[in-house]
């Protein structure tokens, strides 16, 4: 089982460049999420989606955009990279949220450095 697949694993961007972080899941989950994790910290929610065509902002959405055209894919777009966006980005999916039988399944992350 592939689960949640994120690409690329690592990326270095110059200030002002743009890029798309890819995320795909093969578990037919409706819910998908993007979190960022700064060094030594927990996870902060950037955007989430409860199904194809539906997205919503999390705690720290500024500087990012998302789309959800299919159930499987949930790409995260950085338009004008800034040093403050240096972080590890995790994509996750679940069949529901917070309930007993719906854990979040995470990818292995994309480590992004903006210089």
């Amino acid at each position, binding site marked *: 089982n592939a689960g949640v697949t994120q690409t690329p694993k690592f990326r270095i961007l110059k200030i002002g460049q743009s890029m798309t972080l890819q995320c795909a899941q093969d578990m037919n989950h409706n819910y998908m999420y993007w979190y960022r994790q700064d060094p030594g910290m927990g996870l902060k*929610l950037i955007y989430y989606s409860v199904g194809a065509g539906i997205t919503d902002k999390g705690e720290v959405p500024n500087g990012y955009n998302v789309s959800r055209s299919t159930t499987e894919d949930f790409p995260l777009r950085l338009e004008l990279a800034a040093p403050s966006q240096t972080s590890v980005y995790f994509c996750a999916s679940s069949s529901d949220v*917070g309930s007993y039988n719906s854990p*979040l399944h995470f990818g292995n992350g994309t480590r992004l450095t903006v210089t």
Partner: protein
Amino acid sequence: TQLLEQSPQFLSIQEGENLTVYCNSSSVFSSLQWYRQEPGEGPVLLVTVVTGGEVKKLKRLTFQFGDARKDSSLHITAAQPGDTGLYLCATDMGRRALTFGSGTRLQVQP
């Protein structure tokens, strides 16, 4: 404002010792999940607690949900180097996404 407070932030112990980490909030949880994250990987779910006063055991790990459902603890008995990692609690806070605490980083020295 951190909705979920975890303590301690960092813990370094010797193999064989016991430890307890905590997750607290001023809000009532509908449910609470504990995750463990190892270096270079995404978090993995350990347990979900739902009922106030609930106690769940996972081998040497014991999870407790407070009676008022505002706090939870994770106790590890006879810690091993394989327990090393970042322990995160998370809850939905009534939203359609999980909010995570800042985590407790555990280092178990052999």
